[in-house]
């Protein structure tokens, strides 16, 4: 696939209470956004284990977005997003050392009413990933 026709695959882990509802709202409000995302609903962004993100990348995702509720007090489970934040901040460091560009991984806080933010974040991410190109599979050796 040439670089121009490249359509990035983005795996989104969206929390049930905020980000997933925002995606719903974007849908019912008939907002348009690129179809490159595969949304996985999780009950809380704190449920997103760094292993899931590593797995998504190794199975062909070009980008991963984790979206949860705004800190300090939006989380349905009080501090699930705090845990997500600490985990994913650390994961960012790991990904960078493994040669994965930091633009490929994003953590965003999107509340249930922020359909516009949802659309904006997805659009931005697709654009950035199109510039970056596909993530090479792990055993491919580049010249």
């Amino acid at each position, binding site marked *: 696939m040439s670089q121009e026709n490249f359509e990035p695959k983005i795996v989104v882990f969206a929390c049930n209470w905020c980000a997933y509802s925002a995606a719903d709202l974007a849908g019912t409000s008939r907002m348009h956004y690129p179809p490159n995302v595969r949304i996985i609903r999780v009950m809380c962004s704190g449920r997103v284990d760094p*292993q*899931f993100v590593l*797995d998504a990348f190794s199975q062909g995702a070009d980008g991963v977005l984790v979206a949860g509720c705004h800190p300090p007090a939006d989380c349905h489970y009080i*501090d699930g997003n705090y845990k997500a934040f600490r*985990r994913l901040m*650390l994961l960012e460091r790991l990904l960078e050392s493994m040669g994965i560009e930091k633009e490929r991984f994003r953590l965003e806080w999107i509340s249930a009413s922020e359909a516009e933010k949802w659309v904006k974040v997805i659009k931005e991410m697709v654009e950035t990933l199109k510039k970056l190109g596909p993530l090479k599979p792990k055993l491919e050796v*580049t010249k």
Partner: protein
Amino acid sequence: MMEKPKVAWYWCASCGGCEESFVDLAEKLLDVFDAVDIVFCPVAMDFKKEDIEKMPDGSITVALINGGIRLKEHEEMVKLLRRKSKIVIAYGACSSWGGIPGLANLYDIDEVISRKYLEVPSIENPNKTLPSHITKVKIPDLPNEVEIELTKVLPRLLPLDRVIEVDYYIPGCPPTPDVFWNALQAILSGKLPPKGTVLGASQKSLCDECPLNETKPEKILLKDLKRPHEVIPKPDECLLAQGLLCLGPVTRGGCGALCVKANMPCTGCFGPLDNIIDYGGKALSYIASILDYSPMEEDKLKEVYDKIPDWVGLVYKYYLPASKFGGKVNIKKSKAFKEVVEYD
């Protein structure tokens, strides 16, 4: 008399510590020699590849292989041993997941070779000679130059099970004599567990057998991380509670908490428990969960994370080649060292 089971013992990219652990069986070694015939063991006995090639397929009962697969030679030898053996066991951390030599997967092969042969402070190589597949050498008594052939190097180090089918794993860096002995008993008894099982070690995490487990608080929340050289830990309190990053909670037990008993945090050489997707990811997840910071304190959290200079080295010390990425992504083919072969 019934024929004794035949055992082959081979080393790939390993340091020799695994052989050492075999010798550490001490007087139990005599029982081992009573029970089995060792047919191949390059570290101690003079057998050649041809000797193995001459044996009928499947005639070796157990092949114990330690070390990761770094060279074409390793790949050939383990494929040969797989054909000749009924059971193949990955012995030790390197063979199971790549081990410490596997951390080289964070670099392109050119960087690895130049570091090893040109840059390390202990090397003296004024002519900047690099190893190559074919080298011509003039030997004084011979009329012509002779060609010396070295094996080729793979672009990445691979765990054994990425190259051949592996039946069982014995973990550890190196496996302790007890673990090896337990595994050996399981093999010799003939009552073997399902394929892919880890032999000789525990099914629970290290904390379960750690003598300091009683002092581990119900909930640990840390404001700071400490590295082993910064503090002298109290010997009677859980190391995690003292701020030292001990990987015990995510690591398989079976070693008897040797490091913790010597006041050193666990570095994870017994590898992951069953059903773990990626050891490093799991370790990260647990470390982040015990830090007591909120998203409003981002700067302070960054400072704490900055205290550990090499997170990959910490959480993937023994596991990088078996991890989801296997090392750095987009590694480059060698420019200088053309003999590098792509792994098929």
